[in-house]
């Protein structure tokens, strides 16, 4: 069960009705994993249906800890948080992007959902150094890997924006990063996110086959 609207980084309190519906849904479907995005999406009662990044400061993991603990208490176990794709960055950053989930994980004994596609997007949008920072993620905290793809949108001035479309097949650079993740983390359950223009089953089977070959190439046994 992968949440997109909880807004763990919000200053507005978590909507109790929203949380109750989550509880009801969990009781109905009994998900193996419940995850959220490490982001904010509302302020002063105004909601933006997007995954807005938190500032990379010492304050951020402190702030997100309390709502994360609350959700984990509702869930009764870890609810890992996912690194988000970001299209803006704030003027001041006292630490790297990856110190945020790492710091949060230590505070609340929380897990991380590693989205390698979002790493690719942020590396392209902000700085290639993000790839190196991602390597610092504590392996023990990573509970799942997400694969998806971004669409490269080109503008008239020649600039390129990677858009997190979850639409076409996984691209070469995301597969390359996934290979690095598997080498480091070994096996983690790995869904491929495909939101629109769903392909025929054999296309998805092909993607799954590529993921399997990466595991085999790294001599990783599924278990």
């Amino acid at each position, binding site marked *: 069960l992968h949440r997109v609207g909880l807004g763990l980084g919000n200053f507005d309190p978590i909507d109790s009705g929203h949380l109750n519906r989550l509880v009801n849904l969990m009781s109905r479907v009994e998900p193996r994993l419940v995850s959220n995005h490490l982001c904010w999406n509302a*302020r002063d009662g105004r909601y933006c249906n997007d995954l807005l990044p938190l500032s990379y*400061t010492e304050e951020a993991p402190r702030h997100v800890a309390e709502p994360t603990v609350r959700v984990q208490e509702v869930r009764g176990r870890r609810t890992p948080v996912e690194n988000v794709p970001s299209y*803006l960055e704030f003027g001041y950053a006292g630490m790297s992007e990856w110190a945020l989930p790492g710091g949060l994980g230590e505070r609340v004994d929380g897990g991380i959902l590693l989205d390698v596609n979002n790493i690719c997007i942020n590396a392209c949008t902000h700085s290639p150094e993000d790839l190196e920072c991602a390597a610092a993620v504590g392996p023990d905290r990573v509970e799942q890997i997400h694969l998806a793809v971004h669409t490269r949108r080109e503008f008239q001035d020649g600039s390129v924006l990677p858009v997190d479309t979850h639409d076409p097949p996984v691209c070469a650079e995301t597969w390359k990063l996934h290979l690095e993740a598997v080498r480091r983390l070994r096996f983690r359950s790995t869904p491929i996110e495909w939101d629109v223009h769903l392909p025929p089953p054999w296309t998805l089977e092909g993607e799954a086959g590529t993921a399997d070959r990466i595991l085999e190439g790294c001599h990783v046994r599924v278990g």
Partner: protein
Amino acid sequence: MFELAELQSRCSAALQNPGTYEQTDVMDLTPVQCFRLESIARSDHLADAFGQTRVDHPGRDLATGLANFVRLGVLTKG
């Protein structure tokens, strides 16, 4: 440097009020290239599908606001 709450307030105000970014001093935010405007429309769809709590503004207005924000940011921040 703003505290997180203040930063989110300024960012939220900027995203929802195109044309007022300078007044809200939002240029402490550094827009990088562009926002994913397509995702705004997509997230509206997700809001329906997942029963998200509240959407106080039409997505297209927000997309316009984002576009103006980005345009202003590119012009003034280079």
